[in-house]
Structure formats: C-alpha cells, structure tokens
C-alpha cells in the first residue's frame, strides 16, 4: 500500500491511476454498449438480459450481489479518475499563471485539448443517466424492471435524445485521445503497438459512438417501438 501511495504522490503516479481507472471505465462502456444493442432483439431479450445482470452469480452470491460489486467498483473508478484529473489539472494550472498573449497551439489533436471539459460533460451525463434510466427519478413514466419500455419512452423525447447524443459524442472524443494516451502513460515501448495506436483509437471511438447512438436514433425514427 505504501508503494501505491508514494507512486500516487508523483504526477506520473496520478496519471497511472487515471489510466488504470480509465481502462476499467472503458471496459464498462464497451460492455454497456453491447448490452444496449439487445434492444434490437426485442423487449424479451432486453429485459431478460437486465434480469440476468441482477441474478448473475446466484445462488453462490445473493441476488444483486455481483451487480452491486460492479457498481461499487465503477463508482470507485470514476472517483479515482476524476480526483486524479482534478489534482493534475490544478498542478498544471499553477504551472503557468502568466499566460501568453498570443498562443498558436502546436498540437496533435482537438481531442487532447478537450479531455477536461469533455470529462466534465461525461460526468454530468453519468449523473443524469443514473437518475433517468436507473432510478427513474427524471423519467416521465418509469417502471422498475421494464427496461425496454423505459428506454423507448425515455428516448421519445427529442431534447433527451439530443443530450444523449452530445454526451456520447463527448465520450467518444474523450476515448479517442484517452485510448491513445493510455499507452504512453503505462509506458508502452512496443513499436508495432505504437504504429496502430492512433487508427485503433479512432476506430474504437467511432464504433463506440455509432453503437451508442443507434439505439436512441432508432427510437426517434420509429424503428424501436412499444408495440
């Protein structure tokens, strides 16, 4: 544990914490996207998949056991990720208190400049999303367990769908830089990996966006219906 805390005390250590928690979150958003696509297999398939998540591991562990374990791990990952991002942002902000009058950023990508704001949008979205689809607090007609119906009703509102698309766009841009960056942070030196990092990050980011966007769009276009 002391090794972990001394590592974390350095800027490189905080980046490593951000990278590891980012990888956990990436694993989750990938599985979540694949789960969402169950909507195209119909109400039955979607609801029973959700049911599976509640009972997975029973009877060895109680119902909801695995689900809550995963939730706690994800919450911790978001916490570590956001905390290290915040601390590093503070370090960098105080490293240049006198700014340039003229600055032409000599940069690699739009994505790398928007990690912090993009991250904040994603964080705000996560909170909204939990209130919308998990607790139903801000959902117009929420019924616990009717995952498919909740989804279709939820996305029948155009502003809600628009906000989802913006958030998923922000996530994809975040991942485009993040999935590239993570290799540097964790010290990859494999040249073959280095060659494909950029295109692979782009492909995954685009795939992620399409995978997430297709469900709300299908509702808006009337392909996924309550009928």
């Amino acid at each position, binding site marked *: 544990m002391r090794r972990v805390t001394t*590592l974390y005390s*350095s*800027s490189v250590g*905080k980046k490593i914490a951000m990278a590891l928690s980012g990888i956990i979150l990436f694993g989750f958003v990938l599985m979540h996207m694949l789960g969402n696509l169950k909507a195209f297999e119909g109400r039955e398939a979607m609801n029973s998949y959700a049911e599976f998540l509640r009972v997975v591991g029973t009877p060895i562990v109680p119902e909801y056991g695995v689900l809550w374990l995963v939730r706690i791990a994800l919450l911790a990952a978001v916490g570590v990720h956001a905390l290290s991002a915040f601390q590093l942002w503070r370090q*960098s902000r105080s*490293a240049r208190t006198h700014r340039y009058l003229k600055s032409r950023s000599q940069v690699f990508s739009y994505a790398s400049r928007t990690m912090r704001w993009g991250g904040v949008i994603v964080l705000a979205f996560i909170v909204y999303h939990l209130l919308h689809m998990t607790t139903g607090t801000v959902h117009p007609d929420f019924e616990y367990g009717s995952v498919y119906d909740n989804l279709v009703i939820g996305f029948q509102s155009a502003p809600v769908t628009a906000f989802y698309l913006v958030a998923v766009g922000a996530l994809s841009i975040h991942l485009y830089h993040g999935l590239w960056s993570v290799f540097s942070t964790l*010290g990859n*030196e494999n040249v073959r990996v280095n060659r494909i990092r950029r295109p692979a990050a782009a492909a995954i980011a685009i795939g992620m966006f399409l995978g997430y966007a297709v469900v709300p769009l299908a509702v808006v276009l009337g392909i996924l219906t309550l009928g």
Partner: protein
Amino acid sequence: MDFTLHVWRQGTPGSKGDFETYQAKNVAPSMSFLDMLDLVNEELTRDGGDPIAFEHDCREGICGSCGMMVNGMAHGPEDLVTVCQLHMRSFSDGDELWIEPWRADAFPVMRDLVVDRNAFDRIIESGGYISVRTGSAPDANAVPVPKPDADKAFDAAACIGCGACVAACPNASAMLFTAAKAGHLSYLPQGQPERYERAIQMVHQHDEEGFGNCTNHGACQEACPKGISVDYISRLNRDVLRARLAGVAFDST
C-alpha cells in the same frame, strides 16, 4: 524587409512588464531572428534606449540559450530550428511579430525575453548523472553498446535544454526534457545501475520545480528544435512505474 515588432519588456524579475512596439527596417532575408533583434537593438541604443535583453551564445543551434515565443510558437514557425537558426525569409515583408518570453512559473522572467532555466539544472542534478570513478578514460570499446540502443541514446542526448517543450506545452510540463535526459542514460549500459532511482528522482524534482503534468498532448515534440520524440516520455513513465512496483528506495530530501 520591414517588420513591426511587439516585444515583451520587463525590467526586473517579478516586476510588471508590457509589450512595446518597434519597427525593424531594412532586414535582410538571410538574417537570423537574433540578427534582426541585434539590428533593432543597435538603433535602440543609438537613440539612448534600453536594448531588448535576450539570451544567446552559440548562434548555431547547439547551446540551447536562445529561445522565445514568436507569434505564439516556440522558436517561431519553422520546424527543427532554434530562433538563432530561424531566418527572416521564413516571414513575409511587413509581418507583425509578437515576441514573448517562455511562460512557466518554473521559468521566472529575469528581464525582457530572458528566463531563468535553473529548474532544468536542478532536475539534472537530482538524477541525470552516472556514478563512475574518475581517472584515466576507459578504453572506448570496453563496454559494447548495441547500435539501436546507441542511436536511441544519441537521439535523446540531442536535447539542448532550451525549454521550448515547456514553453509550448499547454500544461507547462517539462516531461519531454526530463524524459530526454533520463532516456539518454537509460539506453546505455553505464546508465543501468541508477536507472530506476534516476527516474523517480528526476520526476520528483520535476514536480517540485512547479512544472505541470503531461497530458500526452504532443505540443512539446512539435516545438522541440531537436525533434525529441514523446516516446521517451513513455519510457520514463515505464521506469517510474517499474521502480515503484519494485519498491526502489528513495530519500525525498
């Protein structure tokens, strides 16, 4: 060629500076950026003014003394050159040029365009060395170095410590410099005994000096007059991670 210059003027460290406007007239396209400043300074001195202070020494791109932001770009618009090697033909006649010192809290402005880069020296002191017995020089080929490693070490050793990486970095991070100095030694057999301690100490000193945190943005590599690759930052991160997991001892004084 004629130019309008807006130059940052600041009398002493910590005092309030501001931009002053000057005209540079009859500049030859073959002049370097520093020659052009010399020309302006000659006129300034003749008129009883204070010449613009800037650092310079070799004027051939190898000492790392010179360096300033020209229109928001470290060492100006050309790739792989320092301002002393930047020719005025890279600009167009009549251009307006904004000239600012490197901006980073770890690099306080001493006067006009001169900044204090001692933070770099302290990063090197913290670990950028190898411990060897002095005395007669060892035989040149006594320790074989594989060619690819020698090349990598050499590329890293090309760093002249100019500070452009810090200046261009949106986070004012000095990771490219630190990684070049650590990387140079980590590729060589002589650098192995202290390799992991070095990585930790140098990153620790980097943070202590008040540089920002690297977000793998890449502006440093673009700005670097010696083309140092961000891959060295990967390697430094890897060494820090390995050192910490292996529990390398380290006194934090």
